[in-house]
């Protein structure tokens, strides 16, 4: 019998921990980039629609599944699914709810360790006087562990170990430790975010320099928020909005189930779930949109943002931008920015430890310390390849299979279990048990029909992503009998590493060079004739990127790197598969013990 009787200390603590689980680096980095790439201000419409018809239903499903499981002594998804659906297979589907967390924690703690390290570098003045290229180069040196950026050998490894040790120590304190971190971290995160957002809103054109004469934060905000209603009819925008909602809420991971399993059996989950979801949205839509894009556009110009907006800006660009505020304010801004990212990261990584600990406690009576230390050691073993071979694609491979594909698969399957196997009527009663708000009954039908359909679209869309993500074009081609051309980012193409193989062929082919040089010449000519300063800035950024591409062609170092990726990627996949199978064998062992003890299992 499970001796797992921990519970949350307070309701506010639970909400903050749940919101902390959802709020991550993506709120500040992924959301604005997605919005910029998908219609600017018009992105918010599909985004909020998807939040209502997919985000909130998934939150309600996972909260209620968790509380239902907790009532029966199950605090992780294998045996939560096992008790909700008849059939021996479901507990192995539930393995996703532990697997995803361990695999994601392995690389997520590495990002978290960067934020920790960058806090020290910001305060210590490492970035003072650096050019933009030097700040970007600093990051490249940092992740290339053979190079020391501060005199500390293997600095990236040391910070990773520190970060893991901190996570393990907090987890060993149990839910009270997680709750304390959330109560401190979330208010600080909002405070830091508000400071930077106000700076982003008030920067205006004060950051323009002779080097970037057209730089303006207003351009960044216009670019992000000017509605392009035409984009609403583009399936690509809706797919991107659904994907963003999905990843921002941390659904499909198993962490929400685990946290909710510690809610008392008659406590509300409906209001809690909705409140935690909206808190995440506040951080994303209000704070996330006002930091990176406007500040970058305010110093580097909108052309630079258009061509370079990506996750990497957090470490490769922001420290340089902060330096424009003077040494003292730069140190404060660096502390706030990387502190904010650190709190966003640690509240999520702590959540990732709890499903494993809950499972081991339920099934094998492991104590908190044993559970936390074992989690730390497994994450260390899995995470070291991402640290040591970061440049060879191991990190990206973990992120793709564990942090992206697994989430969609598990969310789709759990929704089917909840709405169609457990039954939407029973599920609706479970959601409303002890509820402090009256949910509109329309959600019952949304949970049964719309949410699984949307998840199916997201999954199929990822499986067969059309070339260039141009859905309309490929549908037309299909109608004309020209077939469906897959993009290299689709799951099917990713399986065969089609993108890297195509890149190797292109880099090795000397015929590629004249065409690229011709394009560069055309860009130079356009720059000479351009009269509009912003247009000229955009062309210059494009030329710079083109020259970078020309340098890669026939570069033996670059081709060697791509070939190494082809070697390391299968190793990363093998590690992930071994983890999943190892967890599945633990679930089988637990099943045998349950049968022996006469515990309830189908």
């Amino acid at each position, binding site marked *: *019998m*499970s001796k797992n*009787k921990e*519970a949350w200390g307070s*309701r*506010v603590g639970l*909400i903050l921990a749940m919101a902390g689980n959802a709020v991550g680096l993506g709120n500040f980095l992924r959301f604005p980039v997605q919005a910029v790439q998908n219609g*600017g*201000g018009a992105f*918010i419409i599909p985004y*909020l629609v998807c939040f209502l018809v997919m985000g909130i239903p998934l939150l309600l499903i996972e909260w209620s599944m968790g509380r239902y499981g*907790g*009532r*029966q*002594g*199950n605090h992780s998804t294998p045996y939560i699914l096992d008790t909700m659906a008849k059939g021996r297979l479901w507990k192995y589907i539930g393995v996703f709810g532990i697997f995803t967390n361990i695999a994601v924690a392995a690389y997520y703690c590495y990002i978290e360790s960067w934020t920790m390290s960058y806090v020290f570098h910001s305060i210590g003045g490492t970035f003072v006087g650096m050019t933009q290229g030097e700040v970007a180069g600093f990051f490249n040196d940092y992740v290339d562990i053979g190079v020391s950026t501060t005199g500390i050998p293997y600095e990236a490894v040391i910070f990773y170990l520190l970060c893991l040790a901190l996570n393990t120590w907090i987890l060993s304190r149990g839910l009270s430790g997680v709750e304390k971190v959330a109560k401190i971290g979330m208010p600080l995160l909002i405070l830091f975010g508000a400071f930077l957002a106000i700076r982003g809103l008030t920067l205006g054109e004060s950051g323009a320099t002779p080097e970037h004469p057209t730089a303006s934060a*207003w351009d960044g*905000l*216009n670019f*992000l*928020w*000017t*509605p392009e209603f035409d984009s609403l009819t583009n399936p690509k925008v809706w797919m991107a909005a659904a994907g963003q909602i999905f990843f921002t809420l941390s659904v499909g991971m198993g962490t929400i189930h685990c946290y909710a399993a510690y809610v*008392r*059996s*008659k*406590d*509300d989950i409906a*209001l*809690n779930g*909705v*409140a935690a979801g*909206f*808190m995440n*949205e*506040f951080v994303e*839509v*209000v704070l996330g*949109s006002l930091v990176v894009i406007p500040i970058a556009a305010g110093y580097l110009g909108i052309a630079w943002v258009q061509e370079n907006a990506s996750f990497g800006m957090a470490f490769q660009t922001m420290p340089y931008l902060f330096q424009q505020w003077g040494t003292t304010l730069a140190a404060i801004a660096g502390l706030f920015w990387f502190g904010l990212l650190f709190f966003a990261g640690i509240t999520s990584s702590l959540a990732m430890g709890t499903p494993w600990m809950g499972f081991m406690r*339920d099934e094998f009576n492991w104590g908190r310390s044993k559970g936390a230390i074992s989690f730390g050691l497994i994450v260390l073993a899995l995470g070291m390849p991402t640290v040591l071979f970061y440049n060879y694609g191991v990190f990206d491979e973990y992120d793709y299979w564990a942090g992206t594909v697994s989430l969609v698969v598990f969310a789709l399957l759990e929704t089917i279990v909840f709405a169609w196997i457990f039954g939407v009527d029973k599920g609706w009663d479970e959601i409303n048990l*002890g509820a*402090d*708000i009256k949910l509109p009954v329309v959600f019952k039908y949304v949970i049964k029909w719309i949410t699984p359909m949307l998840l199916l679209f997201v999954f199929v869309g990822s499986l067969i992503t059309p070339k260039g993500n141009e859905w309309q074009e490929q549908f037309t081609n299909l109608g004309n009998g020209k077939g469906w051309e897959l993009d290299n980012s689709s799951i099917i193409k990713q399986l065969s590493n089609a993108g890297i193989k195509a890149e190797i062929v292109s880099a090795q082919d000397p015929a590629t060079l004249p065409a690229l040089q011709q394009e560069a010449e055309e860009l130079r000519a356009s720059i000479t004739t351009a009269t509009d300063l912003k247009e000229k800035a955009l062309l210059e950024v494009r030329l710079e990127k083109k020259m970078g591409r020309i340098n890669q062609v026939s570069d033996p170092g670059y081709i060697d790197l791509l070939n190494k990726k082809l070697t390391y990627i299968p190793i990363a996949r093998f590690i992930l598969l071994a983890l999943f199978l190892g967890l599945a064998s633990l679930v089988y062992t637990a099943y045998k013990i349950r049968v022996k003890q006469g*515990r*309830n299992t189908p």
Partner: protein
Amino acid sequence: MNTSALITMVLAQVTVTCFAVYFFIKVYNAPNKDADDFPPGP
């Protein structure tokens, strides 16, 4: 900043902030239920 961008931004941010604050206050003010029970596991 152009007018349509400003309107979109203000509308989206005010809506999300109002809902977030409303639900958080509702949670904060909700009465505590009696401490219950985890029924023993099966």
